[in-house]
């Protein structure tokens, strides 16, 4: 397990070279791949999220650690296909129709991936129809929407209605966020939850799915 401590440190520091080397040697050493993921990579990103919330780490470090983890995940990918790795859940994420802002959405997506969720990022300017289409295709646990303009927020309501019409609303949890979005608005449109930033998005996602 001392390999994993070094791996954890490397991910937190954002040291791709060391992290990928440690991941590979753990795999080669026959270590359980789910453990490498949960006790190594996800635990590291969990620590990153905590430090970010405390103001000890900032957006650039978060990005660097998330990218480091992604490089390590590439080495574990063959094992995903064989069905030996369990993900925390499937999440569709996108910035709503008419809105092109993606920085926050990308941060949330990276942090959630770092926490062990499987992300389906639809990008920006995503219509209610596209959210529904993807939801029908992959049966997600969470549909996450971002908006940075007050004029595009109504699309969140429309997407929830579209999910309702497609008989999907009760099968997913809806999470919303973005600078003009508020908890009050989330309640108004009957979203399942609101998260103010990438760090808390992970915590809230786990809460609404009842997982740790």
């Amino acid at each position, binding site marked *: 397990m001392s390999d994993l401590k070094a791996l954890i440190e490397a991910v937190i520091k954002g040291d791709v070279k060391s992290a990928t080397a440690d991941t590979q040697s753990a795999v080669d050493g026959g270590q359980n791949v789910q453990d490498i993921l949960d006790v190594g990579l996800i635990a590291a990103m969990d620590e990153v999220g905590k430090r970010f919330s405390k103001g000890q780490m*900032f957006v650039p470090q978060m990005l660097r650690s998330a990218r480091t983890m992604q490089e390590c995940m590439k080495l574990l990918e063959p094992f995903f296909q064989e069905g030996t790795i369990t993900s925390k859940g499937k999440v569709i994420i996108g910035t709503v129709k008419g809105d092109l802002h993606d*920085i926050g959405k*990308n941060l949330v997506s990276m942090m959630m991936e770092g926490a062990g969720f499987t992300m389906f990022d639809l990008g920006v300017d995503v219509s209610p129809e596209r959210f529904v289409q993807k939801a029908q295709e992959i049966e997600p646990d969470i549909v996450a929407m971002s908006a940075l303009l007050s*004029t595009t927020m109504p699309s969140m309501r429309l997407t929830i209605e579209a999910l309702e019409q497609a008989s999907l609303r009760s099968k997913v949890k809806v999470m919303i966020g973005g600078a*003009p979005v508020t908890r009050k608005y989330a309640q108004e449109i009957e979203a399942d939850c609101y998260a103010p930033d990438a760090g808390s998005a992970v915590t809230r996602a786990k809460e609404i799915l009842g997982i740790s």
Partner: protein
Amino acid sequence: MIIVGEKINTSRRSIAAAVEKRDAAYITKIAREQAEVGAHYIDVNAGTFLEQEVECLCWLVETVQSEVGLPLCLDSPNPRALSEAMKRHEGEPMVNSISLEPERFQALLPVVTSQPCHVVALCMAETSMPTSVEERVQVGSELIRRLTDAGIPLEKIYVDPLVQPVSVDTRMGLATLGAIASIMNDFPGVNTICGLSNISYGLPERHLINRSFLALCLSYGLSAVILDPTDKQLMATLVTGEMLLNRDEYCENFIAAYQAGRISER
């Protein structure tokens, strides 16, 4: 350097509260404070009020102009809010903003050509955020062409090259700066404008980053800026920067600012 005072934005708690209860005295106080420290335009933004935005924005226009004799910068992504606000505005407003996003451009072109005004042209097109100098210049140039074709004089166009956080991509500072320089060079007489705070998103010591970015923008030719003119350090950086760039004969403005106590930290 044209200064647009940014404080009357309902994303600020005190402003939202004042707009909620229609506290005209508070709003005019904030407007006056900005006017007194050199704002040329007072920005008004009620975007957080969603369905009530149009009503609130109009109230802000009437309230501010009842006491402060400055033109306003009407700040909204909602074409209806802008058009209604313009009708109530006395004199020539600045309209913030139009972009190349098709729906927005189509809805706003008639608005900005309906009466004399200054126009902020945001370098955003339909598919995604620009990531380079070239993309910004491309969109900016196209916007200038379309607006001048529609009869808006070059001098009344303020190209906003879009400011993105360096915390996400450390090339973002240069992307904006390069775009400013290109546009000022390619279209003599046009204006460029930007807000500062996006540059420092996700990092600590945002004020330091913002005012440093302001100094860099000045050196790349920025002609107008949206900021908080009551931020003493920020305004000190502005006057100092202008002097350093040989825009202050005999350092007159700097010395006057100093003697008026607007430079010292103490």
